């Protein structure tokens, strides 16, 4: 009797738990799926029927993608996004890694001072306008630097990198120092080869941030030749008349709604493709921060 009630309890519980998971899964996938379906809907279809969630694959039309991918404005914006993402991440790492490494040395005189120096602006940010004035003063407006430099060191990223370096065995660094290596060589030849996980974690965080960057781009990049994909996407989504930003072929077999959906889908595609492969690095980074708590 007892085992019977227990197993019923188990079964009911599993039913509840798994239903919740499946419902949640569907709730997350439906909007993304709908973006895709809408992006491949041909013009003659939406004139006659409501789209819903299913479109016969034989009806799929990639006309909107073809137009977007061949359009100079789209190619330009994608190139800009790539430049900002790759260049920005390189700058982030070049600033963050040596700084975090120096601070990871417990004997460094002034270490506490520099850590405090990094924490104060993290706790009290001056706000939007004072930073804008600096970028303006440095004459960075309408250059890629304006979206790359202001976020040069993420304090949180710097701190988790510092604690990772602190956890590396001291003997290895000491041995290299005894062999006459200076600190730059120790970092380059001893520490970095051991730090692949944290470099990937932090690098990926920076890269996602740059790929998704749009507010700094709105603030600092007025020149449409420099604007990243996110800005073009926003313009396409907000434009009453899509022609202002991307020449829309009036004879196209793709409706404007497909055009919008296709630009959304193309912008999220890199994340959909890359993210599942590197997921573990993201979660690890978050847990590193969590453990610190």
């Amino acid at each position, binding site marked *: 009797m007892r085992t019977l009630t227990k197993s019923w309890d188990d079964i009911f519980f599993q039913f509840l738990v798994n239903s919740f998971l499946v419902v949640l899964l569907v709730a997350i996938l439906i909007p993304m799926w709908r973006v895709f379906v809408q992006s491949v809907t041909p013009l003659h279809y939406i004139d006659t029927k409501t789209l819903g969630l299913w479109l016969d694959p034989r009806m799929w039309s990639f006309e909107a993608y073809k137009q977007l991918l061949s359009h100079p404005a789209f190619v330009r914006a994608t190139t800009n996004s790539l430049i900002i993402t790759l260049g920005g991440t390189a700058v982030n790492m070049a600033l963050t890694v040596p700084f975090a490494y120096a601070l990871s040395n417990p004997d460094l005189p002034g270490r506490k001072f520099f850590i405090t120096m990094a924490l104060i602006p993290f706790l009290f940010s001056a706000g939007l306008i*004072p930073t804008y004035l600096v970028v303006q003063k440095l004459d960075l407006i309408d250059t890629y630097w304006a979206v790359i430099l202001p976020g040069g060191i993420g304090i949180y990223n710097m701190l988790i990198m510092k604690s990772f370096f602190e956890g590396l065995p001291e003997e290895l660094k000491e041995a290299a120092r005894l062999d006459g290596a200076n600190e730059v060589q120790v970092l380059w030849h001893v520490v970095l080869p051991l730090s692949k996980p944290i470099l990937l974690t932090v690098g990926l965080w920076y890269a996602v941030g740059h790929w998704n960057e749009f507010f700094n781009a709105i603030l600092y990049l007025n020149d449409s030749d420099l604007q990243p994909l996110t800005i073009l996407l926003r313009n396409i989504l907000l434009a009453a008349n899509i022609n202002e930003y991307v020449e829309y072929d009036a004879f196209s077999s793709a409706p404007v709604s497909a055009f919008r959906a296709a630009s959304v889908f193309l912008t999220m595609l890199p994340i959909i493709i890359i993210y599942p492969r590197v997921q573990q690095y993201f979660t690890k980074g978050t847990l590193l921060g969590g453990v610190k708590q």
Partner: protein
Amino acid sequence: MRRIFTGGGTMIGISKLKNFIGVQVSRNQQLSYLGRTLYKYRWLYIMMLPGIAYFILFRYLPLWNAQIAFKDFKPLLGVWESPWAGFKHFTTFFNSFYFTQLIGNTVIISLLKLVLGMPMAIILAICIYETAFKRLARFVQTISYLPHFLSWVIMFGILLVMLSPSEGLVNEAIKASGGQPIAFLYSPEWFRAVVIGSDIWKDTGWGTILYLAALMAIDPTLFEAAAVDGASRMQRIWHISLPGILSTIVVVTLLRLGNILDAGFTQIFMLYSLPVYSVGDILDTWVYRQGILEFQFSLATAVGFFKGVIGLALVLTANRLTKQFAGSGIYS
């Protein structure tokens, strides 16, 4: 008497001299010691130079510029030369009708995100932990973490695809069942629901990570012992799982409360429009419009400064409470 006096005097003189020389020597020693140490660590300091330059230019120069909150900033005069204005901009803001609306919207949106989003993340974490189908659990994790990495521009696109009155999926359903389409993003009744709902959709999965880690850390023998004692699944969750992640829940809550004035700037900026300012305009979006669009640099900086001060107080309080609660703070 006299000899003693002189002698005493001489003695004092010598000891003063000794003292003087002694101090001198030890200062020299200190200086050369300092010099030697700095030299010893020269490579580390050189490595820090670009970072230090970054902090000065992009973190401390803005703090210096924040003084225009107390000035009448004139771009031609620059930050330093602009005339002082005291607390003028602060009082303007406190007395304006925006004040209550902005604080209200900011706090309400933040709190609703916390109160509604957090239970979702906790339930999801428990479900992922409890399910017997581990592959399903991993799949759900991968899929539910994904939206966290989508920018709010993409989210705006997805929301249009779902909610647009003309072509959105939800409105298709409403029309199919005979209703009138709703302009969710432009209607003051619906806007907050869209903001909170899209935030939950985006970040519930990601929010489970810390709870999952806490669940994994619970001693599994506790569950077995409870099962032997005849505790039902629900009882085990109530009496073992939830207490096991309680400290994580408290810490996350405190942190979120510390950042309550950050209601999600990029999200609101991307989603809002004139018709919904009354329910959706927050401190950050107002600062942006006043500063960048209306050129009210000093007023916008003052409001940003005000937000920074309150935020600092909240974060420090939250950190102190966390320390008391969990034994160690986040910034220590």
